[in-house]
């Protein structure tokens, strides 16, 4: 796994972005960038040559679920790995995210070990 890969963290709460950023830094990923919802994430993704997206689900503007669908529908972005980190824990939501092509799903509150495990798993498969 390339530790220099460019990661976009999408969450409407600055605190959660900071937590994820810190956890990623502890895992050796320093090239992280932030967006506060799907709408601000899309232009960054289109121009920023990102390698990986970590997104929340429930956000104003555009949700992480819609962002995921947008990424999968965009020919330039469709292969981008997406990890959902969210408080949404309904079974049908997890199934919907899986069907929309999510690469990993973490429910909040979560641990650093879970984040590491899911990221490792995602990049093992690519």
């Amino acid at each position, binding site marked *: 796994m390339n530790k220099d890969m460019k990661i976009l963290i999408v969450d409407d709460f*600055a605190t959660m972005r900071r937590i994820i950023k810190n956890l990623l830094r502890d895992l050796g990923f320093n090239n992280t960038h932030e967006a506060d919802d799907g709408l601000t994430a899309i232009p960054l993704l289109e121009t920023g040559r990102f390698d990986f997206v970590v997104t929340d689900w429930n956000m104003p503007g555009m949700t992480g*679920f819609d962002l995921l669908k947008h990424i999968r529908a965009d020919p330039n972005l469709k292969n981008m790995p997406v990890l959902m980190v*969210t*408080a949404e*824990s*309904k*079974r049908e939501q997890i*199934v919907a995210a*899986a069907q929309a092509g999510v690469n990993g*799903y973490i429910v909040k509150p979560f641990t650093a070990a879970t984040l590491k495990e899911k990221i490792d798993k995602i990049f093992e498969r690519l």
Partner: protein
Amino acid sequence: MSESISQSDNFEELLKSTTGELVSKIEQGDLVDAVNLLQQINEARNRNLYQEVGRLTRALHDAIRNFHLDTAASMPASELSEMADATDRLNYVINMTQSAANRTMDKVEECLPVATSLKQEAADLRQEWARLLRREMKPEEFRQLYRRIDQFLQSTESQAAFLGENFSEITLAQDYQDLTGQVVKKVITLVHDVEASLVDLVRMASQVDRITGIRHPDAKQEQQTQVKPASVAEGPVVNAEKRGVDVVSGQDEVDDLLSSLGF
């Protein structure tokens, strides 16, 4: 409530008892008495209606007042109710929790390099110390080690004190739990009050319908067809135990569910 029911019951009793008399008067051809009886019924109905309207008006007034709306003041609509206040309170909760999280993370970020340098210095010294124990050290090196240990002890003391201060600040930063808890409780009380007032209003509206005889087309069926789509976000599940099987209770269940889908 019971008062109004008894009043309309009185009216119903009057209606029942006079109807028989009315029919017999009409059959007997006593039209004047019959018209008088009709008049009596009408008056009783009006009296009942006026009383009900008066009572409902008072109740409505109380109910509106219970919404904590300050209708007398010439304030903008957004400042009229405690709802605006509740919104402020909830924003306060967001700000408090955010600043507590940031304070905590700031302190942790300050502590991490200190802990790392302590660890590094201790590891280096231990190597030197091992050399000393193995008697591999020259007298000059030993004098250096001597000074270094003294420095290390000093800096350990001050760094441990620094860590201790930061830990107590981290603990203090958790005071948001108490403060936000109080604010959230107040908002919960307001929501309960508003709900009770709404229930009162609905109950009154149904009474108005009853005494005036208004019937509404059934609106219930439309409501039931609105089903939430799966992709609507609802935020953290606060009572997963009560929700049963439609929500997962942790990461393990998410993983199980995803692996059952071939992930």
